[in-house]
């Protein structure tokens, strides 16, 4: 059935790829293999037009950012009140920042997307016409005599909501010309309104958020302040992934003050839209949104398919619970000893998850927190010891301490590592001896023996080894033994989760009995708090590469003024961001 050699070769190949910086020379074009917490070096450019030149400017550049697919859907829903799901379903996926943030200022409009935006716009217009929504939005007493005046009124009201600012004559006139083109030549008033709406739904001024300030105002020393309407949009998309509501747009002048921004952000955060956005943000940060794409070798993990929905649902419910009924802190996110699976999976899946996966011995559905101290093998501490993270950072056929270690270092602790391609090293899978079975951990012993490998791997591997009590789908290894297939059949080998992290130069250096012990330390670590703040910056600013390292450092300095308990709070960190000058000022320099 399953060749032992191929399994081992796979594990080693992935391992070798993931680790990177062991051997070889560093490319001169990259910076900082990074010991200690990294600056913005490692977060990488987006998958779009790419990162810019490294910059220590304390401000983000004046720029535009294309809405993500989710943001676009929320925007058209707010405008037309018709379900946008079908219309945007075929859009190309968001091109994400390196770590997976879908808010990414490098997103482009490709030829495929341009075509789909137009198709979606036409479908949405047709749906809004059918639902009566456009009749309502563009009501006109006597279209035959007042059609153009009615169209102007519609353009000014609907257009302002779409562009998220009042329209000038320069905005209105071209739209009115579109109305004329479609309503003339035998077309009707409705034809004209439909055509204008179709155009607005794909207009560059609508699908890009601007962070440009007022170009007519004099900009001082290469910087500009965003207009109140731009601030309203940024704040709204940051909080809810959707456009500003009426309360924001009617009070834009208050947004020029930090208090005004904080007040609006706190008003928005309890909404369903904001909680959905926060869940997305944390899932993207930790990489666990990728669970949707994860599949396992059914020969090795026959039960993964049955648990997949519950694993994914748990990650959503748990994060949501941390924000809705918890305080939104790292202590809870990384250190909670409970879980919750309240949506996204059937009752049967949830029941099976608790009994088979966690070994809790209680079936039934759970819509409240379930304490995990009674789980098979003891408590599972925090989100890193849950199924989504453990399955996502593993291979199809086994656990992978390298992926898990790299994820903890890069995502949770911001300890940067270079990539194999950056290091210009060649990755050749070693051919192990099939007659000498080894645990996954033992396969990586070579890393510790080779002085070049050791440079990076004494950290990577030891973070990752702590998770070795869990297999490739996050299931607890029975009796703390790993089943290893060999030519002679399956042998059970004891796993070792005790690790010593050294050389990171942070408060994370130390000895850990297992990943639960590690998670408890991560949940209160100053290094992790600062990393979370960096990640919130990257996820919110839509960029995290070296081109904005100055702005990121600027925000970090401000964030460090918070009391320690607020520093570990994701909500307070976002509040600090919108209060910051970094949020409202932009560099206009080269």
């Amino acid at each position, binding site marked *: 059935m399953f060749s032992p050699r191929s399994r081992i070769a796979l594990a080693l190949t992935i391992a070798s790829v993931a680790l990177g910086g062991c051997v070889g020379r560093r490319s001169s074009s990259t910076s900082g293999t990074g010991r200690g917490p990294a600056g913005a070096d490692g977060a990488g450019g987006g998958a779009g037009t790419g990162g810019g030149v490294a910059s220590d400017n304390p401000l983000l550049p004046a720029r535009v950012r294309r809405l993500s697919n989710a943001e676009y859907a929320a925007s058209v829903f707010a405008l037309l009140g018709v379900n946008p799901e079908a219309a945007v379903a075929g859009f190309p996926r968001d*091109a994400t920042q390196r770590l997976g943030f879908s808010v990414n200022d490098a997103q482009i409009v490709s*030829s495929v997307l341009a075509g*789909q935006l137009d198709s979606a716009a036409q479908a949405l217009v047709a749906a809004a016409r059918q639902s009566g929504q456009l009749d309502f939005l563009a009501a006109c007493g006597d279209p035959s005599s007042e059609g153009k005046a009615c169209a102007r009124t519609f353009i000014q009201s609907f257009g302002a909501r779409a562009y998220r600012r009042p329209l000038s004559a320069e905005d209105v006139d071209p739209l009115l010309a579109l109305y004329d083109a479609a309503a003339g030549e035998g077309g009707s008033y409705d034809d004209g309104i439909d055509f204008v709406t179709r155009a607005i739904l794909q207009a560059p001024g609508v699908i890009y958020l601007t962070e*440009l300030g007022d170009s007519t105002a004099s900009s001082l020393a290469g910087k500009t302040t965003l207009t109140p309407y731009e601030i309203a949009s940024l704040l709204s998309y940051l909080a809810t992934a959707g456009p500003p509501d009426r309360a924001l747009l009617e009070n834009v002048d208050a947004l020029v003050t930090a208090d005004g921004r904080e007040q609006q952000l706190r008003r928005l955060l309890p909404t369903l839209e904001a909680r959905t956005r926060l869940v997305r943000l944390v899932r993207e940060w930790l990489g666990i949104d990728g669970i949707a794409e994860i599949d396992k070798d059914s020969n090795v993990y026959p039960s993964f398919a049955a648990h997949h929905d519950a694993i994914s649902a748990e990650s959503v419910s748990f994060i949501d619970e941390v924000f809705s009924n918890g305080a939104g802190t790292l202590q809870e996110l990384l250190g909670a000893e409970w879980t919750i699976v309240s949506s996204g999976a059937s009752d049967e899946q949830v029941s099976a998850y608790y009994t088979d996966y966690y070994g809790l011995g209680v079936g039934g559905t759970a819509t409240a927190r379930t304490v995990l101290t009674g789980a098979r093998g003891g408590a599972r501490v925090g989100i890193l010891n849950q199924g989504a993270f453990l399955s996502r950072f593993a291979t199809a056929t086994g656990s992978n301490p390298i992926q898990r270690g790299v994820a903890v270092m890069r995502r949770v602790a911001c300890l940067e590592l270079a990539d*194999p391609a950056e290091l210009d090293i060649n990755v050749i*899978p070693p051919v192990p001896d099939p007659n000498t079975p080894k645990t996954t951990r033992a396969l990586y012993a070579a890393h510790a023996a080779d002085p070049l490998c050791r440079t990076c791997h004494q950290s990577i591997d030891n973070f990752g080894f702590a998770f070795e009590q869990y297999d490739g789908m996050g299931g607890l290894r029975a009796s703390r033994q790993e089943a290893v297939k060999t030519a002679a059949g399956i042998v059970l080998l004891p796993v070792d989760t005790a690790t010593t992290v050294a050389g990171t130069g942070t408060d994370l250096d130390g000895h850990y009995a297992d990943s639960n012990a590690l998670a408890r330390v991560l949940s209160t670590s100053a290094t992790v708090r600062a990393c979370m703040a960096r990640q919130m910056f990257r996820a919110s600013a839509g960029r995290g590469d070296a081109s904005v390292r100055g702005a990121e450092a600027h925000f970090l300095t401000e964030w460090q003024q918070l009391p320690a308990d607020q520093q570990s709070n994701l909500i307070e960190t976002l509040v600090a961001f919108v209060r910051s000058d970094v949020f409202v000022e932009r560099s206009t320099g080269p």
Partner: protein
Amino acid sequence: MNKVSAARRSFLRAVGAGFASFPFMRTLEHSVAHAAGESQPQRFVTMYHPHGVAAEAWAMRSSDTEGNFDLTFTEPLSGAVCPLEPLDRHKSRLLIIEGIDLLSNTFGHDSAGTILTGSRINASLQRTANSSLDQFLAVEQGLGKSTRVTSIELAVGTDSAATGETLSYGAGGVPLPKIIDPVQAFDRLFGGLVLSDDPATREAALRNQRLGKTLVDFLNADARRLKARLAPSEQRKLDQHMTALADLEKQLAPMSMAGAAPACPSGLPSPLRPVGSRFPKLKRYFGGEPYFDAIADAHIDLIALAFACDVTRFATLLLGDLSYEGNPLDLPPDNHGGVAHTYDGSPVGTNGNPIGSGTPATWAVLAKFNRYAYGKVARMMDRLTEYGVVDGTLVYASSEMGNPCLHSTRNVPTVLGGGVNGKFRMGRRLRVAADCPPSNLACKPGDPAFNGTANNHLLVSIARAFGAGIDSFGTQPNAADKSGSLAGVL
């Protein structure tokens, strides 16, 4: 019957005779008649199939020669039929090359991006360092400019932008999105060409076409207004957007305004919009598995028809995995784990690198999957032949790996089909020089002994066949790996 009238009749058949009275349709008809007398353009389609090959049943045997080879043999140890067998009927139009390496510098599964870029993969950024050959030719060399659609990127089962699942990249190595729905693919290719029989729908479509330019002009003006406020580095975003709008304009424009009009040869079937209910689910792992085969066939037929009608000249098609419980090939439900990783190969296809004698039973299942993939390549060749455009087309079929159990990106299977109007000598099998000398069979890229043949050389050869005067293509640290054409192809 003369050439012009045949083309005219064929085109009328394709669009439905009822529309011949519309003014723009008549213009189109004249253009078709005109274009039929001109020399064929060159078209390029790349097809990807995952998980490498069972080299034991795929590679040249000792009895084969460059010009005389058998694609129908049965490998004796495993009982596997040569997976290239479906292509046997196109043997004279094939150039099968073994020994090509993808120097991706990353994990096998992440390496599909190297096939058309010749670039190392940045696994962390999930991008390549340069654009793919199809985009280089279609966009940068302008060869896709005159057709209604500059290029089309299709896939079966996955719309991931990861390098392991993306063939086409724009400038700077930005992965281009793929269409996975045949209905969407049809609309992109033929949406403006075929009009409904329903008079009201038809009138609306014609109106739309009239208004299309007005719409695109507005969008361009809006983009320009925004661009004028941006610093140069930010302006690139709007430049890219306006490039996309130029394609939208071609899509929306009446045929007479869309550059070169379709030149559909006679005997062509009507381009019919695929029925969406045939593919109710599209994505793998999300219920799309049972429709894989129908989606693949629909994509292939659309590409061939689009080539024949000269709607586009550049396409890529990424075939995902066909494997699920109850699949028609009777393969294990998990192709990745149950076929590719189970494959226990012999030294064939690994340059003699000693890896043991392998397990023949595992070769047969992988060969079966390979045979399925080459069946799809054969379908493409069938359609292109049927539509009379096979000699003006180059089909490039490859995989991200050679030996999938080792995740080796070396010795990847390479099959060229068609003709590029005679610029490649077809009807041959070639084997490039071994990567390593017998004294050092485990040599690797970067070693002095390494003598691998990167696919970059093949990309240079293809680019030259399409008239691009380049000497190197791709991004490799060793200049020799990316420079010069592939000896023996021309």
